[in-house]
């Protein structure tokens, strides 16, 4: 499963000066498509919090964070701040996925489709793995059922490879299961 958004841990600080020999080191966890963008995002956020810029700062470490248990399903709660056409808003969204990167990707695509918010207008404030009892959204809570059972109602038959795809077919397909 290749994800578009990767999670990075970025560590940086301002450059040491005569007045401040050991400036404070700051660490951020953020999502970006690649390392270069992650570093850029790091300086963007750090500029907003501290009086330091990329030109008078140094990057100490950047590591990609991988999912510890990609074979278990988790409920992710994502707090985000986004810019709409009329102003900034905070939002809390829940997603069920196996990895945090997958949940974040779902979030970006959902924000784009539901609210027409492009990915550069979204800031992820916080993410957390939510235990099933504390989930707030009905659409995630409906899958918290150990005896879940539902039929697949609409079964579109696909050719098993893209090569076997044809524009015209001899007969109408049978869509029942």
């Amino acid at each position, binding site marked *: 499963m290749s994800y578009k958004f990767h999670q990075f841990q970025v560590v940086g600080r301002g450059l040491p000066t005569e007045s401040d020999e050991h400036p404070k080191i700051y660490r951020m966890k953020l999502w970006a498509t690649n390392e270069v963008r992650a570093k850029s995002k790091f300086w963007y956020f750090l500029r907003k919090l501290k009086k330091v810029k990329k030109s008078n700062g140094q990057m100490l470490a950047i590591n990609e964070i991988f999912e510890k248990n990609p*074979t*278990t*399903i988790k409920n992710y709660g994502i707090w985000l701040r986004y810019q709409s056409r009329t102003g900034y808003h905070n939002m809390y969204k829940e997603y069920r*996925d196996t990895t945090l990167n997958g949940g974040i990707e779902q979030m970006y695509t959902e924000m784009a489709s539901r609210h027409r918010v492009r990915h550069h207008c979204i800031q992820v404030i916080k993410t957390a793995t939510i235990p099933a009892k504390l989930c707030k959204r009905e659409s*995630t809570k409906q899958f918290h059922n*150990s005896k*879940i059972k539902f039929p697949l109602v609409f079964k579109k038959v696909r050719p098993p490879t893209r090569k076997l795809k044809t524009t015209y077919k001899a007969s109408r397909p049978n869509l029942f*299961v």
Partner: protein
Amino acid sequence: MPFKRYVEIGRIALVNYGKDYGKLVVIVDVIDQNRALVDSPDMVRGQMNFKRLTLTDIKIDIKRVPNKKTLIAAMEAADVKNKWENSSWGRKLIVQKKRASLNDFDRFKIMLAKIKKAGVVRQELAKLKKETA
């Protein structure tokens, strides 16, 4: 016409698209409306879209997300492999695979066998025609 095959924990499904095409997998948990967590004795547990799965009639008795050992034991207990290979769907797939893997000599042998079989059938038909005529 109610539904007979449900997506549920323990349902065996056939993968009909992608890298694991043709494999039998067990639905081990449901992620959301479109995806399931599937597992099989010879693959790492992973997620799959329902669009890639075709449900079968076979269902095994497992709890939500069993570990690999429990899964393999449950599959042995339910005798999934034999049930699948003796079902008409499973047999058809085996025949398809065999036909696709024939070499020219095998096809020659099949041609001879078909001619022989047709000859025997025609002899019996001629006998029956003579009796009624």
